[in-house]
């Protein structure tokens, strides 16, 4: 750690990991409810668990992005963070607001929560991923503004690098598109239309810039490859991301009442969205192969490479699978969607945050560059357990989705929804099993932070082996 103020990142990372654990627990609850319908009913209904699962995911990823930015920006800008106290204050505000919201979900019925938080003054609740009460949303905006202020001022006053600028554009875009969560028109078509401006333009637009810049940062640090080379790749990747991803929003406008040309625009442009993800894979492996040093933090390099591969599989391959309008006609809203959602979110955004935590945490905890061998071995085990079980979750859901699509929508005698769900319950059991393995991996991940803390760290091998 070069700058004292980078240390605020640590708070954010710890909170992120804590909420991650909560997210997975609720995922397992829901996974069981899929096959044992009244599990935990009426204490935790499925819809509540779902809300908690997805909102925790988003919130902990935001904590992760902010922590990453607080660590990365000073180092790139070569100066202390502007107003680190603000970053600390915002952390507690964000955490308190997030916790209160989750408690509200769990203790109150959703309609009571809406009443309590005066949702009728400015109704924004009731839409997937954006279920938060309006005041929570306002809180998020305040936190985001304060965050952009410290980050932006630090970048303005310091050295301007491509990594920093791309990150700043991505984070600003994240905040700007979130504003569409306040727009809640009566017309259901318009409502859905702009809902995707948050959801799609986040994960297939501005978040990809954040992903690209964090990945570039980690690669610069761990491989010692020239910055110019890495920056060039970053330019190409973000240009491609924006060209395909912005118009690619059309792949959500096939059947919601929008004009028919979206079927063409959506299909053609979103079919190209895998390209930037593929470039990222090539980029990461290329840089690691051309490395000038063998960084002692093997775990961080593993996470970085893992991100590049899994993001391509989850977003690129599984996204392409159902993105063409004639295919989506049958698969829309089936378990195929869930399979893709899981692997894409995990591969792109969970893994990049964990990569950054893996890279930064040893320094934040006072080491020179890396953890002890014991800790790293545990962390790499957790990498493989979580990643492989996520692959299986995806495969089981894909199996379920293919059967569901066929039985419910394609065969000559289509069956009704619930009959089909019964027929494919074996896949849901297997998904739950894979989910349990994921949880084991996550526990080992947490344990790795406490293992071998008093042992010396891995030393850097000086010469690069051929």
């Amino acid at each position, binding site marked *: 750690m070069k700058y004292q103020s980078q240390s605020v990142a640590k708070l954010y990372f710890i909170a992120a990991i804590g909420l991650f654990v909560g997210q997975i627990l609720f995922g397992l609850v829901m996974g069981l409810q899929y096959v044992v319908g009244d599990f935990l009913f009426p204490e935790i209904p499925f819809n509540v668990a779902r809300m908690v699962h997805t909102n925790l995911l988003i919130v902990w990823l935001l904590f992760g992005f902010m922590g990453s930015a607080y660590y990365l920006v000073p180092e790139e800008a070569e100066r202390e963070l502007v107003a680190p106290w603000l970053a600390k204050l915002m952390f507690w505000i964000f955490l308190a607001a997030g916790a209160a919201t989750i408690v509200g979900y769990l203790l109150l019925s959703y309609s009571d929560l809406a009443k309590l938080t005066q949702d009728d003054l400015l109704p924004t609740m009731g839409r997937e991923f954006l279920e938060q009460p309006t005041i929570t949303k306002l809180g998020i905006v305040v936190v985001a503004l304060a965050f952009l202020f410290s980050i932006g001022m630090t970048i303005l006053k310091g050295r301007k690098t491509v990594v920093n600028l791309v990150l700043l554009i991505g984070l600003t875009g994240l905040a700007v598109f979130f504003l569409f969560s306040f727009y809640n028109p009566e017309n259901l078509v318009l409502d859905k239309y702009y809902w995707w401006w948050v959801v799609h333009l986040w994960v297939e637009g501005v978040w990809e810039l954040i992903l690209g810049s964090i990945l570039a940062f980690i690669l610069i640090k761990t491989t010692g490859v020239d910055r110019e080379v890495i920056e*060039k*790749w970053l*330019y*190409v990747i973000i240009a491609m991301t924006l060209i395909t991803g912005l118009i690619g929003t059309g792949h959500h406008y096939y059947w919601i009442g929008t004009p*028919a*040309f979206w079927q*063409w625009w959506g299909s053609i442009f979103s*079919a*190209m969205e895998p390209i930037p993800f593929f470039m990222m894979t090539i980029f990461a492996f290329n840089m690691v192969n051309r490395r000038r040093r063998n960084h002692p933090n093997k775990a961080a390099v593993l996470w970085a490479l893992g991100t590049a591969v899994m993001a391509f599989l989850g977003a690129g391959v599984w996204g392409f699978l159902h993105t063409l309008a004639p295919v989506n006609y049958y698969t829309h809203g089936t378990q195929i969607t869930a399979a893709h959602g899981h692997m894409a979110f995990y591969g792109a955004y969970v893994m990049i945050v964990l990569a950054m935590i893996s890279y930064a945490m040893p320094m934040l905890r006072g080491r020179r560059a890396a953890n002890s061998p014991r800790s790293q071995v545990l962390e790499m085990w957790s990498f493989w357990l979580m990643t492989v079980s996520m692959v299986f979750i995806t495969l089981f859901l894909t199996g379920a989705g293919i059967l569901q699509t066929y039985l419910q929508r394609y065969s000559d005698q289509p069956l009704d929804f619930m009959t089909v769900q019964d027929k494919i319950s074996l896949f849901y059991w297997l998904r739950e099993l894979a989910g349990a393995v994921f949880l084991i991996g996550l526990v080992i991940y947490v344990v790795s932070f406490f293992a071998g803390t008093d042992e010396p760290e891995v030393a850097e091998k000086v010469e690069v082996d051929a």
Partner: protein
Amino acid sequence: MTEKNRQPPGDLAIWIFICAELGVFAVFFAAYAFTRAQHVELFNRYQQTLNSNYALINTLALITSSYFVVRAVAAIRDDHQRSCARWLGAAIAMGGVFLVVKSMEYHHHFSAGVTLSTNTFYMFYLSLTFFHFMHVLMGMVILAAVALKARRGGYSASAYTGVETGASYWHMVDLVWIILFPLVYVMR
């Protein structure tokens, strides 16, 4: 002079980008052709509402500007920075001609009430040409950046990769139009 390079002129990154862009256009072209095969009558009828004179002028404008860009690269290889900037300026002007003519064409169709939802032919015609239109605009921005740097003496006979990079992108924009023109305006 006769020895061959392993890499195309300009920065390799722009070539990767060019490949990706060409890929998008290829898909678009194929989609046009196969959709047309299912609506031959419709496509043939509405194709006649296009005026190929506009397209001719535009094709000539793009080819000419591409030629100017070639001359710009030749100039900088001889270390003529001013001349390089002037050729680039001329190329940008030809790009401007393209934009104006294309806008007139759009104006004609829009004032006839044509939209993306009028029919499948117009959907393709407007989408394809507009996507290309945006590329012309982007290419002009790139060329302008290169021209400004050239005028400030930022390139020389020994360092002109930037000029070649911008040039390669611009030729790509031309190349795409070379297919688009017969496909949309002439083939039936």
